[in-house]
């Protein structure tokens, strides 16, 4: 999960927008009362052709906000995201290039104007953005550009413009994009340039169950990303290959390689899914990554995953095993020292219906990293009883985690999409929610039973009108 941490707030925001998709007016508000209290709101207004999206988060008395005014899918003014190809220059596209809703208000994203016009088989995409971003500076040079809005004394002005042309016919599309990015300060890293110009060409072929996609982005050198996916009712597979030459990651590009953030590397990923019968899904995934031209690096970095999912009206169960090279995570763990480099993770969950309205939930995670220090393993255990009836929900449970010196990240329904657990502790949890035709209210109370004995309360309210 650490490998895609920066995408989680974006995903949680997208989940909120997905829930609001069918409504013309939707408001979501949440307030968290804990060690770091915050409040969050997200608004959507839609008339026949015009839409407005706005998000805000206030934490430590520091407001962050974004807003987008939109006409159909053609014009967006304010904060926006743009998808293109395999994401070497912009956000990764799953279908055609498009202008997306704003992201999480704490995340930097393009601000300005984006236009997408579709005359006939053609699509013209143009965008321009100017953002004043916080930056870590050293002697006036940029050392780091955080993706989240943070309180850093330094700042830099970022300008991004781009224009692309796409031709689409039955099952085939091809497009070309010019991208320009500049900062008013230079980078301290000699490999990063304050002025970046790039050209991307992408193509996609859809043929029944198959989809082939390729993007080539040229900065000083050409980097490529290829994918082939095949989807059948009971079997699917996806193959991906990325080769990054001298590549400076553009400001809003998707992280191209999963296992490494550096360039001059190539990565191959394969994923297969098989459903022997309707309720059971088996998934295997393998990703390998290697630098080219580095004679000291002999082996590929690798991550392998195997997962089982069972789901029917009475039971839901899942089990996954992940094995990954420890170096991949070293960037996230300052305590990492030289050791045998394998890292294992086991995740399991069981949800069983007891009565018509009552479920019992159990979830477990265990990780093991091969190293010489004693505290090399960690676990997390959660159990709850859930009751749901006529829009009313009640859940009572507890969790226990043991992870002495490793920051354990657990997926969560909260604002950022995850929570970070450290130290050995236990927590009791009470959740109640009530949904009606036009809204839903939810209250989550958590009491830590060890360590700092923190009490936290999260209250949220959704109002939706068609």
């Amino acid at each position, binding site marked *: 999960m650490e490998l895609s941490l920066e995408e989680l707030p974006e995903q949680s925001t997208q989940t909120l927008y997905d829930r609001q998709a069918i409504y013309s007016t939707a408001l979501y508000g949440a307030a968290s009362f804990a060690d770091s209290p915050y409040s969050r709101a997200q608004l959507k207004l839609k008339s026949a052709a015009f839409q407005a999206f706005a998000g805000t988060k206030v934490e430590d008395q520091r407001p962050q906000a974004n807003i987008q005014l939109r006409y159909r899918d053609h014009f967006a003014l304010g904060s926006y995201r743009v998808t293109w190809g395999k994401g070497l220059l912009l956000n990764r596209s799953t279908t055609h290039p498009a202008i997306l809703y704003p992201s999480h208000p704490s995340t930097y994203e393009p601000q300005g104007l984006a236009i997408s016009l579709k005359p006939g088989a053609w699509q013209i995409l143009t965008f321009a953005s100017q953002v004043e971003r916080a930056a870590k500076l050293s002697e006036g040079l940029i050392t780091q550009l955080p993706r989240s809005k943070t309180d850093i004394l330094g700042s830099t002005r970022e300008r991004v413009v781009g224009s692309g042309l796409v031709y689409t016919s039955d099952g085939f599309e091809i497009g070309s994009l010019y991208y320009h990015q500049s900062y008013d300060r230079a980078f301290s890293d000699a490999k990063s340039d304050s002025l970046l110009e790039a050209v991307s060409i992408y193509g996609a072929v859809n043929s029944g169950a198959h989809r082939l996609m390729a993007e080539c982005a040229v900065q000083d050198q050409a980097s490529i990303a290829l994918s082939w996916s095949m989807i059948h009712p009971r079997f699917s597979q996806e193959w991906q290959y990325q080769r990054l030459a001298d590549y400076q990651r553009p400001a809003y590009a998707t992280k191209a390689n999963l296992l490494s953030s550096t360039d001059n590397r190539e990565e191959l990923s394969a994923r297969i899914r098989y459903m022997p019968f309707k309720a059971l899904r088996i998934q295997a995934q393998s990703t390998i990554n290697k630098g080219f031209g580095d004679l000291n690096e002999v082996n590929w970095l690798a991550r392998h995953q195997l997962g089982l999912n069972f789901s029917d009206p009475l039971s839901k169960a899942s089990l996954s095993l992940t094995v990954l090279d420890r170096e991949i995570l070293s960037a996230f763990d300052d305590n990492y020292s030289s050791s045998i480099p394998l890292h294992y993770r086991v995740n399991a969950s069981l949800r069983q219906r007891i009565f018509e309205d009552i479920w019992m939930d159990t979830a477990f995670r265990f990780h093991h990293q091969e190293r010489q220090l004693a505290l090399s393993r960690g676990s997390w255990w959660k159990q709850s009883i859930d009751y749901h009836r006529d829009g009313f929900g009640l859940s009572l449970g507890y969790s226990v985690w043991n992870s*002495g010196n490793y920051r354990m990240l657990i997926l969560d329904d909260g604002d950022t999409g995850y929570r970070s657990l450290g130290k*050995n502790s236990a927590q009791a949890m009470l959740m109640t929610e009530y949904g009606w035709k036009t809204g839903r209210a939810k209250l989550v109370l958590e009491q830590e039973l060890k360590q700092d004995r923190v009490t936290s309360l999260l209250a949220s309210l959704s109002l939706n009108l068609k």
Partner: protein
Amino acid sequence: MLKRLILLLVPMLSLLSASVVNYLEHSPAANALSGITLLSDSVADYSLSPTIGHTGISTFYHRPFNMSEIAVVGFATAAARNRFILAGGSTYLHHSDYSWHNPFLSAAYHYYGIALGISGHMVYDSVKDVDSEYDFSYDLAARYSHKDYGAELKFLRVGSSDEQLTISMKAALSEGVYTATSYVYESGGKDYFRAGIQTDINQYLSVYGSWQNEPNRFGLGAKLGIEPWSLIYSLRTHPQLDLSHAIALQRNW
């Protein structure tokens, strides 16, 4: 003196987990029955046998040897699906300098009077949240019950230093009075016997009693129940230490 000794040993050697599996008998029913699960109808006892055969939810508190410094709390649920019973739960021991956590998941297949089950355990213990250790093990059990008779064979904590083989037989001495005997063999070569009894005084009150040798201990408990809820309280003696108390609230389904 021994009480002090245990308190000294707890942070050093995690005696509560490393000595004998006796210390895993935290639930009130296990406390009262000396771990003879063939007589138990407590959901919390899935941690000692995957073939308990009852479904519900149970939460308990246990005070070993009446030591106020140590608290053991547990939670378990079990649900049936076709001929399978799935159970999960955990037991947490808290001391200011020491903690011990044992979550488990179990599954059992029941076919008329025959039951076959397996449980997986993770045991974590930590001294002052600084030094810690994980241990993984599993239980295997087979049970046969027919009218007033029954038998159970269990291999507990296979793969750990606390491995234990238990053979138990059950018979009704008279109508509604169930007795059982157990032979327990531990991996270190130590073995001992246990005997237990369980009967219903009336539809609201049941009592449990047990005895074991090596060490010589008695267990006694009572269950007050108004279906489907029940409250169980038990105590257990020790030749040198104070009584161990346990209390549980349970709801069956």
